[in-house]
């Protein structure tokens, strides 16, 4: 019997595909903003939401989403104020999230073990009603991350420039925080709250080993995210481990493979760029208009080169040749 014949496995696979796309999509912007750990913080806070759902009898997906959004917006507001105490405020929020979750679970007469499925994912817990929630929320995140890429790229690249370009930077920043929170909630059934941040960050880190542009990094991160998410789920099905663990280990294995390749690629590219540089060839290239005569006093380091003296100027060598300077 194939694994696709099980209803629960079909639901888990749908959730895994959406998670594998949404997490690196929003993760790319978080990494670009150097907020790679934001997903972690939201995951901690969402735990309180899950416990509140278990305590009150509401669906944990929705209570987790509400609390995660509130936490993410708080993190964004603290960040935007840019105060030195921001990281302490964030830490307080993270601890409060975990402690609140365990406390509420206790009040609900459950044990922290009941949270296990939410912390590390669980194939069996994707209920039929959950699939729709996950599908709709995940699809919204993916569509916005792709459709608003020019705007979100600019906001994450250079906030001040984006403001002078007339973009509503605060609105986009809150949107990114809310989408990160929604992604955490969508992912908690597959990767789990404690490991969702890894699926946001690791595919992006792997991708940028091999790429040199934003669009390429973004696209490859989504492909890697789906690959890790689906293969991790299938692995978890066969050996009966928490899917969060297998998904993240596979994603990390991808990074371990890509890292040496990336290092080699960068070396080759650097060599090729240098190889194409006419200044390093034998051709006679005159330096562009030159404001001063190189001499002992000009401040440019002098380098003895065979029968003459070169001057190190802006990363390349100038040699006097009659009235002008050659590039050496």
């Amino acid at each position, binding site marked *: 019997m194939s694994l696709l014949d099980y209803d629960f496995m079909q639901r888990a696979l749908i959730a895994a595909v959406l998670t594998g796309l949404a997490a690196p999509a929003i993760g*790319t912007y978080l990494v*670009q903003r150097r907020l790679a750990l934001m997903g972690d913080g939201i995951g901690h806070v969402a735990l309180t939401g899950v416990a509140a759902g278990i305590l009150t009898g509401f669906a944990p997906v929705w209570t987790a989403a509400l609390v995660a959004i509130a936490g993410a917006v708080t993190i964004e507001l603290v960040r935007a104020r840019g105060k030195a105490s921001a990281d302490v405020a964030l830490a307080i929020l993270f601890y409060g999230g975990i402690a609140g979750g365990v406390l509420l679970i206790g009040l609900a007469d459950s044990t922290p073990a009941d949270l296990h499925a939410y912390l590390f994912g669980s194939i069996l817990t994707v209920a039929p009603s959950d699939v729709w929630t996950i599908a709709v929320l995940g699809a919204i995140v993916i569509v916005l991350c792709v*459709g608003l890429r020019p705007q979100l790229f600019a906001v994450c*690249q250079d906030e*001040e420039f984006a403001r*002078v*370009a007339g*973009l509503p930077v605060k609105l986009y920043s809150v949107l990114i925080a809310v989408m990160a929170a929604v992604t955490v909630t969508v992912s908690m059934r597959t990767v789990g709250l404690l490991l969702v941040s890894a699926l946001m960050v690791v595919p992006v880190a792997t991708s940028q080993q091999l790429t040199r*542009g934003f669009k390429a990094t973004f696209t490859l991160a989504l492909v890697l995210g789906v690959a890790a998410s689906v293969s991790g789920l299938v692995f978890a099905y066969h050996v009966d481990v928490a899917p969060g663990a297998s998904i993240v280990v596979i994603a990390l294995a991808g990074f371990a493979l890509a890292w040496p390749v990336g290092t080699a690629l960068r070396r080759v590219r650097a060599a090729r760029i240098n190889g194409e540089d006419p200044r390093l060839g034998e051709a006679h290239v005159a330096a562009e208009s030159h404001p001063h005569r190189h001499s002992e006093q000009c401040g440019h380091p002098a380098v003895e080169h065979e029968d003459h003296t070169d001057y190190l100027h*802006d990363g390349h060598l100038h040699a006097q040749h009659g009235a002008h300077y050659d590039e050496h």
Partner: protein
Amino acid sequence: MSQCVLDVRNAQVRLDERLVLNGIDLAVAPGEVVAVLGPNGSGKSTLVRAAVGLIPLAAGEVRLFGTPLSRFREWARVGYVPQRTTAASGVPATVREVVTSGRLARRRLFRPLTHADRESVERAIELVGLTEQADRDVEALSGGQQQRVLIARAAATEPELLVLDEPNAGVDRRSQEAFARALRTFVASGRTVLLVLHEMGPLETLVDRAVVLDAGMVAYNGPLPVPLSVAGLAHDHVHGDVTERGLFG
């Protein structure tokens, strides 16, 4: 009277309770190239940041193209080059991708780039002499080249007013000259420039008027050369490169 491109009146800015700008008046007419000079901490960077709405005023008023800043929406008329040491962020981005975000003030949501967008991006990259580097990761470029990427990004907006915050800070001579050439082309088309400088370098011949700030107030506002009485303010730092001809000698 012809309409001012930028009109700052009695601007006061407080940062952490400290009065950084204390009643600045500055009017920039169409086609002018105005340099803001002054020692570190004189408020020159704060002035241009307040002028484009990045810092709120405690008192006074800023008008862009005759419209008060709070109601100004035509951001495609303004190009801004922030003071940065790098154009890179946490994820790789090519020169072309960074410059393309200069078109955002002219683009609508969920629409692909138009032919005109692509053309002006390529023109802006060519303007700063980085055509060959267009597909490279900005992080792989030199500091001066990265600064030129930021200038190209502002130029891609095709603004009427270009505001630059220390475009030459920490930039090698070659990039300064490339920038001066780009700015000359830009000014030749009749557009307006406001730039913060800590030294004139190769830009001296381009600048029409200097505004020298000292302790948040205007110490001089007029043509070059700056009179000797305030020249010390405009030229306060130590040159690293001994061949660099200073602003005033």
